[in-house]
């Protein structure tokens, strides 16, 4: 296998049938991510427009806990790194055990992120920061919440992939799906960087 290594994830022999088959799917998934990016883009714009509409309710300085946000950011960035290790163990030697191991670690880091995020949301709600309170809070919950929902879907996807790996090992189809999952996971990271800068840092500024 290793003599065939070339840039990319090495589904099979260079430019073989598997490569050809995954090209379409990967390209389609990129387009899907672009359209998803439009959705997030509009939600970002909505947040910026709604940011002043506090309607007498609590604002960023009362609600945001930057320490928790920093932890969440750390966890998510780390999970992106461990997903990189998933891809690398898939590329070098196709070691099923290593791929599954790093997938589990990635899922654990993602779950940790989600745990902190839900805790933050619960605390905000306790402080009166519920989405029903103001236009600002509606836009905040929608944007950050949608990212969280994406993460839940990503975790479910990891679960399905682990089941698939157990059922049939690292077949070409499984590898090609892991490639898509990787794109998705790094995309979530990218969106989070936007949320971190625009919502939390920008909101406090």
């Amino acid at each position, binding site marked *: 296998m290793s003599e065939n290594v070339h840039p990319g994830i090495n589904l099979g022999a260079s430019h073989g049938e598997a490569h050809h088959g995954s*090209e*379409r*799917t990967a*390209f*389609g998934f990129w*387009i*899907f991510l*672009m*359209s*998803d990016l*439009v*959705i997030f883009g*509009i*939600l970002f714009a*909505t947040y910026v*427009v*709604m940011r002043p*509409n*506090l*309607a007498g*309710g609590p604002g960023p300085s009362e609600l945001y806990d930057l320490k928790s946000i920093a932890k969440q950011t750390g966890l998510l960035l780390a999970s992106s790194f461990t997903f990189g290790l998933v891809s690398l163990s898939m590329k070098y030697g196709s070691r099923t055990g290593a791929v599954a191991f790093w997938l589990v670690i990635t899922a654990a880091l993602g779950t940790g992120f989600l745990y902190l995020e839900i805790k933050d949301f619960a605390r905000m709600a306790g402080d009166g920061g519920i*989405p*029903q*309170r*103001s*236009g*600002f*809070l*509606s*836009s905040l*919950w*929608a944007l950050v919440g949608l990212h969280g929902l994406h993460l839940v879907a990503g975790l*479910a996807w990891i679960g*399905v992939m682990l*089941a*698939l790996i157990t*059922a*049939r090992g690292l077949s070409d*189809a499984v590898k090609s*799906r892991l490639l898509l999952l990787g794109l998705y996971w790094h995309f979530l990271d990218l969106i989070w960087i936007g949320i971190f800068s625009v919502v939390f840092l920008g909101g406090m500024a």
Partner: protein
Amino acid sequence: MSDPVFGRLDWRVTPFDDFWRNPTANEAVASGAALVVILGAVAVAWFLTSRRLWRPLWRDWLTSADHKKIGIMYVVLAGVMFLRAVAEGFVMRTHQVTALDGGFLSPDHFAQLFSTHGTIMIFFVATPLITGLINFVVPLQIGARDMAFPVMNQVSLGLTAAGAGLVMISLVVGQFGTGGWTMYPPYTGATFSPGPGVDYWIWAIGISGIGSTLSGINFAVTIYKMRAPGVRFLRMPMFTWTALTTAIMMVYAFPPLTVSNAMLALDRYLDFHFFTNDLGGNMMHYANIFWMFGHPEVYIVVLPAYGVFSEISSTFAAKRLYGYNSLVIATLAIAVISFCVWLHHFFTMGQGASVNAAFGIATMIIAVPTGVKVYDWLATLYEGRIRMSVPIIYLTGFFILFVFGGLTGVILANPTLDYQVHNSQFLVAHFHNVLIPGTLFGVFAGIHYWFPKAFGFRLDERLARRAAYLWFAGFCLAFLPLYWLGLMGMPRRAASYENAAFESVMWLTFAGAVIVLAALGTMIWTFVASARNRAALACPIGDPWDGRSLEWATAAPAPEWNFAATPEVEALDPFTIEKAEGEPYQPAECYEDIEVPRNTAMGVVIGGLTGVMGFALVWWMWWLAALALAGVVAAIVARAFVTDTHQRIGADELRQAHRDFLDRVAATEPVNRDLEMTSRNRGRADPEAPA
């Protein structure tokens, strides 16, 4: 508190019940429409049962992943919805004849009519019509075997059908929203529209909108990645170019719709404050997001029609398309500019003069590439040997009417003038004046053009011509007087009026509506009569019009695998060149095994479950919605574990089928253009030297 099992659904939500208590003309119309839906469903079920068609329907159509069949099903779905939307237009026109200081429909009922009419025409007629046409034609034109994602294609159709189904159900169970096809809040928020009507709209549009996004992705990948060898970008037929452009626009334009829709749903269901009057909501933001979808949508449905006009002008004039490159550039320019003009839909909402001016200018600029296109088509026809077949009749009608409609668009693009006529009948006249000739005439032309490829026989020319002339006349009479009404100050969406001078004009437009009904009837009769007479109209060789692009080189109806061997292309209009210079209809050098997707019920399952979910959400049956959603997720996960998704078709079978086809070709007498409309046209063209 709503019921834990049935939510807010109970037996008093049908129109029959209101008719029972209060038997007026208004309630009779509502009950009659509901009855038609029920009887229609029963009649279809009875027909399928008595002819024993359920099994073939399931096996050959509903579970098929063949792009041609999916395309045809899209068009059929759009056709059914078209019947309803035209009928609604007719009822509205009838009402307006009586609407001087009143009218026989209640204002609320009238509001439902214009809301569903617009919703259906945009989302469940225009969009599925062009989606269906692209589905059917594009893989054939680029020499591909199918879409890039055949099963996802089926799912897209299922989602569109689920949305259409919800709109149909709203006729019988409960009511539709009254906020127009755009459903602007705060009127459509929970405070002012608490009932299920707006929710029907939200879920119908939300579900079918996701289907359209997926279609866009599918088309784009298909055209980027699945072109046969030699089909370079600048050798793609114009229709494929417009399909690619539309696909890209779908990918970017439908997400804003999804977002504005989801936000409205959050406002209504969970008491969020995106668009409410109080607590920091901003209702103008809805219009802002919605029209980021809404304006490009106009071009999403009109560009493929432009593509049809490009194909037919060159085929029926027997000339190369004039200014191919400029048409490509114009198409792309329209796509880009169409994303930069959305604000012209709310010039009067107070964003200030300089913003209005910028968007007004941007809007007017669209006329430039559109003009380029019209000149290119005219130049293509110029000195061609034109056959005035049905598609060219639609093209001629389009030339006259669309240019006029476009000019009124330039008028509306001027904010100062828009202040005078916005929300008036002038606007109604304008957008019917562009969308009917632009989209409907284009799709009609396309249906007549490609019908033989889909079914193996031509449509009856005489009847089809009659329908085309009736469409033209009915359109002029029904819509052009609205310009005058608008200038005289009659608002759109008004259930009644006080100016007696309007009444005579209403009779005029009513006469137009009658002619439109006659056109529709003639059109349906064209299909029925042609199907009955299909032996005489058959053209199994597949090239009845002396076509120019790849799709005409294969049999009619095209086989499941489209092409026995992957074609190779060396120029634009490859089939014309082959017919003129080389030998068309040659056996391939080698045949290879191919794989086609197996039948699957994914589309039906996902479409059905999302439809149930939408219905449950409309009526607050939370348990059912959760169950249906869980079913969708389970189906997607289960699909990931299916390995046996394809079946192989052997090279020998392909070789044999192709040989049989070539034998039939050799045994068929070629016909020249003069005999094209006679029953001697079996689909083998005797070509003229290409111009």
